[in-house]
């Protein structure tokens, strides 16, 4: 163990000796863990961390195994996207106000980025924020907002200057989801459930203290969120043969009557692809331990989308007659994002979203081609035109 590692282990054990989660309760335990700097060790002291190398987080997690854990399904957007953006662009006050309840899960977050007319072309978004004294008044409509029905706060991009080209007139806010004028409506999905929503913003007043970054700098702030989003979606290395692969392997192992030579060949190919993707994610994590997420995260998200779709498709096919059945079409509001939960039919349908949410695979390929490989940009008709003059 390195000196750093020893210090962290000692710190964690000392904390655990003095805090009994059974006696103090889950939330109080998590708050205390945050205050001890053992939440995300690479964050600064006072903000849940110790300013330690990111790689030491694994050491902490090992020590805290068996204690109350975060609900990563419900907290995914807060932890993966809002937190790194707050850390990079937030004021001291904002960081102190938001990060602790975000980490403990007492306050959930959602992401108000996409709009009906602005998906892949996010910078064309039309939700307006107009300055009024110390407040901003927001009007517009957002869509595909996972977890908006549970969220206390949202990260949001809005247009504050329609007279400049589309990337320049944007500003980034924390939106108060309890503010008057915020209306959340469920959007029923292909799976039958509603894990995401439409969000209507009508005369929503947000104090200027909820602005993140400078006025007009919203696109730059959003880039941080999006890079972290792709790493969060694509960059978590599981165990070998785990995740979607584990489900199909289990069926294959226990149901020899379903096996065919064709599927055997294809599943071995997919197993290898899953393994090399896992290893690439491990390698990306190692690189991240030393720096910040680069466009490589986009590559991992591409890979996982393709794998999940191929595997879930093969699983339904493997099951033959049972693949004709679906577990439940009941309309429900899911409170967590679970890509592998429920039945094979659900997995097949849900995986279709993997190549759309958080940046479509087509956009990610363009990002890789231009930012990693340095290929020339395509001719752009919209770059130097004021947003208000763009054809719509």
């Amino acid at each position, binding site marked *: 163990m390195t000196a750093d590692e020893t210090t962290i282990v000692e710190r964690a054990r000392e904390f655990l000796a003095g805090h009994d989660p059974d006696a103090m309760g889950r939330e109080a335990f998590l708050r205390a863990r945050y205050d001890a700097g053992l939440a995300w060790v690479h964050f600064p002291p006072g903000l849940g961390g110790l300013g330690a190398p990111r790689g030491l987080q694994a050491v902490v997690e090992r020590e805290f195994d068996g204690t109350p854990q975060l609900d990563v399904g419900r907290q995914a957007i807060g932890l993966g996207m809002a937190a790194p953006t707050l850390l990079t662009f937030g004021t001291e006050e904002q960081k102190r106000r938001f990060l602790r309840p975000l980490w403990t899960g007492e306050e959930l977050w959602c992401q108000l980025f996409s709009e009906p007319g602005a998906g892949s072309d996010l910078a064309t978004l039309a939700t307006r924020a107009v300055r009024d004294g110390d407040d901003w008044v927001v009007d517009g409509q957002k869509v595909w907002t996972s977890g908006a029905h549970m969220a206390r706060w949202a990260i949001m991009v809005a247009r504050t200057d329609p007279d400049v080209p589309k990337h320049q007139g944007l500003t980034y806010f924390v939106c108060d989801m309890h503010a008057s004028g915020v209306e959340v409506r469920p959007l029923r999905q292909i799976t039958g459930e509603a894990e995401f929503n439409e969000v209507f913003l009508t005369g929503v007043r947000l104090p200027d203290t909820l602005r993140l970054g400078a006025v007009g700098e919203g696109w730059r702030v959003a880039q941080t969120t999006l890079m972290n989003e792709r790493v969060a979606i694509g960059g978590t290395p599981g165990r070998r043969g785990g995740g979607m692969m584990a489900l199909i392997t289990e069926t294959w*192992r226990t149901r020899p009557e379903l096996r065919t030579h064709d599927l055997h060949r294809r599943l071995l190919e997919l197993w290898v692809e899953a393994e*090399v993707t896992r290893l690439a994610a491990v*390698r990306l994590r*190692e690189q991240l331990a030393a720096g910040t997420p680069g466009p490589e995260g986009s590559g991992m998200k591409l890979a996982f989308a393709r794998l999940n779709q191929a595997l879930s498709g093969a699983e339904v096919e493997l099951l033959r007659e049972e693949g004709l059945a679906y577990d439940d079409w009941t309309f429900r509001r899911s409170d967590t994002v679970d890509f592998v939960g429920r039945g094979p039919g659900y997995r097949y349908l849900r995986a279709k979203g993997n190549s759309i949410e958080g940046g479509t695979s087509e956009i990610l390929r*363009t990002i890789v081609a231009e930012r990693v490989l340095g290929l020339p940009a395509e001719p752009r008709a919209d770059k130097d035109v004021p947003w208000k003059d763009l054809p719509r």
Partner: protein
Amino acid sequence: MTLLYSDVEEELRAAVRALLADRCPPSAMAARAGEEPLYDAGVWKALACDIGVAGLLVPEELGGAGASPREAAVVLEELGRGVAPVPFLTSSVMATKALLAAGTDAATELLGPLAEGRTTAALAVSFAASPYAAAPDTVTASPRAAARDTVTAEDGTLTGRVTAVAGAEAADVFLVPASGALYAAEATGVQPSVSLDVTRPVAVVTFDAAAATLVAPDLGPLRAALELGAGLLASEQLGVAEWCLATTVGYVTERRQFARPVGSFQAIKHRLADLWLAIVQARAAARNAADAAATGADTATAAAVAQAWCGTVAVRAAEECLQLHGGIGMTWEHPLHLFLKRAKAGEIALGTPGDHRDALTGAAGLPAPA
């Protein structure tokens, strides 16, 4: 475990890359391909002795550098990037590994000169041999040699013929599987074949009552050599693929059609982005195989995964490179063909991707249908 490169590995890489760029750049090799054997004894001597790559895997007490497969893998990446016509994989990795695994006095005796680059060795097996299949009995040890179970069988002889042997033209000594044991012998004849891969040709090697020394009483060391060779071949394939991608990116950035660089067309960009991703995965898999070989943990699975993936990726990279270069890609003048030939031959070498996937049946928990 780490899948990143250490500073020492990067220094070694820089030394090998600089030497190859200076002494045998792909453009120069393309110019003389087909006119003379591409094996370059001068370059090999410089690599083997001056940089010391020949003894990388040999322990210091036996005259080597005592490095690990991780460093050897980095050398292979650069040799792949330069399609270098040198016998590093066949001699310094595979033959050396067989001798190390044998561990007998006869084996140790051969290692010293190999490590110093004074001699070169090759396995007398087909380069297409899979690590998972038994070695075909094409060479027979004389009854006297076969009956011996000690390592002093200096008067034993070998008779037979092995086809598609890689690294044969440079080999002073062959390690020969015969009658269930491993022998060292000089060949009676080495007949170069007209090979698909012109930078690593194969040859027919014959033994006609050739004097042989018993190196190992069984073929365990041969299998170990084939497994390590397969695992590290992935790094060479990574180097081949990286050259192809970088060269293609350079070309489509320069080449203009329809009044704009070809590389600004989405149809091209997306293909190259997908290729980049496959290479990112190949790099992780190749590093993992090298790291596993260095630590001895889970080596067979890591090697099979790397081979199942990287062989295909190198071929794909070379084929994309060819297509995206248009007609120029089809010319003898452009060095790309050396890479395509190396990639396709490498895909078959030491087990096809399919062989390696089949070998993962157990590790993946996916038993074959009845």
